[in-house]
């Protein structure tokens, strides 16, 4: 087990390294336009250009630049750890920009995750137990809608209905929890619901399928044959088998969201990582794009490891070698 984790952490390190290399090449080497010019303001003099080039090391060979980039990530730069350098646009350190926004994204993701797990799993179970009955058909109709409806459209429609038509909820924007809890929740409830919708629909279908499959297994027949109540047969034997695989998928979905729920954040005007990415792409703010990419990939790789370890506890057949 210990060996396994060590090996997997080494892989995480390796993956992050590869990703930094790839992003570095994509964003610094391949794009048209010179980062020096981008950083030097609108009407740079040759002196300024030269100074910028020197200050950020653009005059050095590429491998030195990359080495510095990686070194800053792992050991920090003059602004602290991890070092992602300056934003071209705001002229402030990228790490501060990102740290300010991770919190918002995290709040959005956690809230939505709680909603979609509760809603998705319960719908899935109810559906499976009432297979081919009206409840099941309705639930699967909802799931189809949820999976196929585009987030931005649902988000805009929700805003229109709850905000503009019925004034039930305040509009877009973000109020920190520490500032005003009531305002925080009333501002977050719509983004949570909208973000959770497609996931809940997907999870409902998955849980339904898994549970139906599990209920057809021989060990369910054994559980019945030994005289367990139907509640135990389904609630214990059936669910345990059908929910275990959900853990993996949940871990990956959740870690992907931590890289930024781009559409939801845009629609509801939430200052999260996703919004930052969109903004930075529009402004060609390379250091920010790079930093968010690295962070998002780190979330995914680490979460994959966490999921694999948890899975080992949930499924005794998984062996770590």
């Amino acid at each position, binding site marked *: 087990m210990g060996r396994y984790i060590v090996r997997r952490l080494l892989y995480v390190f390796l993956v992050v390294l590869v990703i930094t290399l790839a992003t570095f090449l994509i964003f610094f080497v391949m794009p048209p336009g010179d980062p020096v010019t981008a950083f030097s303001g609108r009407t740079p003099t040759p002196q300024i250009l030269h100074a910028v080039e020197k200050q950020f090391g653009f005059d050095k060979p590429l491998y030195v630049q990359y080495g510095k980039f990686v070194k800053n990530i792992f050991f920090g730069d003059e602004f602290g750890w991890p070092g992602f350098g300056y934003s071209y646009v705001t002229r402030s350190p990228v790490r501060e920009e990102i740290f300010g926004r991770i919190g918002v994204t995290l709040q959005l993701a956690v809230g939505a995750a709680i909603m979609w797990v509760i809603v998705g799993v319960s719908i899935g179970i109810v559906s499976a137990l009432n297979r081919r009955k009206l409840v099941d058909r309705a639930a699967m109709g909802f799931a189809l809608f949820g999976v196929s409806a585009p987030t931005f459209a649902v988000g805009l429609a929700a805003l229109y209905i709850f905000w503009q038509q019925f004034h039930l909820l305040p509009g877009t924007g973000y109020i920190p929890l520490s500032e005003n809890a009531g305002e925080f929740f009333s501002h977050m409830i719509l983004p949570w619901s909208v973000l959770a919708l497609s996931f809940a629909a997907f999870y409902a279908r998955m849980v339904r399928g898994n549970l139906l499959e599990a209920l057809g297994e*021989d060990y369910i*027949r*054994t559980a019945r044959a*030994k*005289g*367990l109540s139907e509640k135990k047969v389904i609630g214990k*034997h059936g669910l*345990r*088998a059908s929910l275990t695989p959900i853990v993996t998928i949940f871990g990956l979905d959740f870690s992907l969201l931590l890289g930024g729920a781009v559409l939801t954040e845009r629609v509801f005007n939430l200052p999260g990582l996703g919004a930052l990415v969109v903004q930075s792409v529009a402004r060609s703010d390379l250091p920010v794009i790079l930093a968010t990419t690295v962070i998002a990939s780190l979330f995914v790789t680490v979460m994959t490891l966490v999921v694999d370890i948890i899975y080992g506890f949930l499924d005794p*057949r998984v062996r770590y070698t």
Partner: protein
Amino acid sequence: MAETLLEVKDLKVHFNTPDGVVKAVDGVSFTLERGETLGIVGESGSGKSVTCLTALRLINLETAEVSGQVLFKGRDLLKLSNEELRKIRGKELSMIFQDPFACLHPLYRVGAQIDEAVRAHGDFSKADAKKRTLELLKAVGIPRPEERYRDYPHQYSGGMRQRAMIAMALVHNPDVLIADEPTTALDVTVQAQILELIEKVKEDFNIGVMLITHDLGVVADVSQKVMVMYAGRPVEIGTRDEVFAQPLHPYTWGLLDSIPAVDQKGKRLIPITGSPPSMIRVPQGCAFHPRCPHRFEPCDKERPDLMDRGGGHPEACHLTVEEKKKLWAQREASRTRAAS
């Protein structure tokens, strides 16, 4: 006089499928007495498994139409409420299945699964349940039960899993053990161990055993009574000696001739021609007639009833007992000639 534990009367199980009605079981009657092993033998699709699963209502009743009676110590299992039935399952009437790996929950420890069976009936504390589980693991011959108690199913070998299943079935000293192809998935030497165990259990606990198998050898080995099934109906029921010494149905003859014997070589097998019928379109008359070499005038019209035509045990074939005895004697004679 032995006590009748289970009496099945004219059981029919028809499944509604998009392709039509599958007549999986179409009129089965038999009795099981305390202290005897009833072997039910037939090929896949003969309805032998469905018969047993229906007895415990372990089939999907939503798609099935069930008629007839399954009387267990006088009570009709098909008419009990779910809760009444639950109280019988695993307590008075237990079942083990073909594939012991698929039948144990892969995510729970074997010990915990047997504990659960103990605690499903009556008031057992956790410690008492564990004690009972260990007792049974030991009784079915699992070495180092305390250690094995904590193992997961995948850490058990096939034979051990089947032993664990038997232990689970026996926790409440049931009256009847239904074993659905209990040795099919196992190796020959392990099969011998499990059959030995089932026999021992039957003796020690003085219960009735229903053994479902496609393997005539297994039936011949451990059963006192044999029922041969074809296309959802019994074609012959009798004691083991009656059925194997003087089988009275051409299908039974066909089965016996199809099996390569271990003790002699060279004899050409005489297979039954054709394939078993679709259970949706069971042939008119005797279901076996299209494959029967001895069919004659009424076979494709009238379905023969299961009854004693004077041959000593009930069978379902239009041929007279004299004809059947003659045909069987001819077969025996030609076999002896081939062997010498």
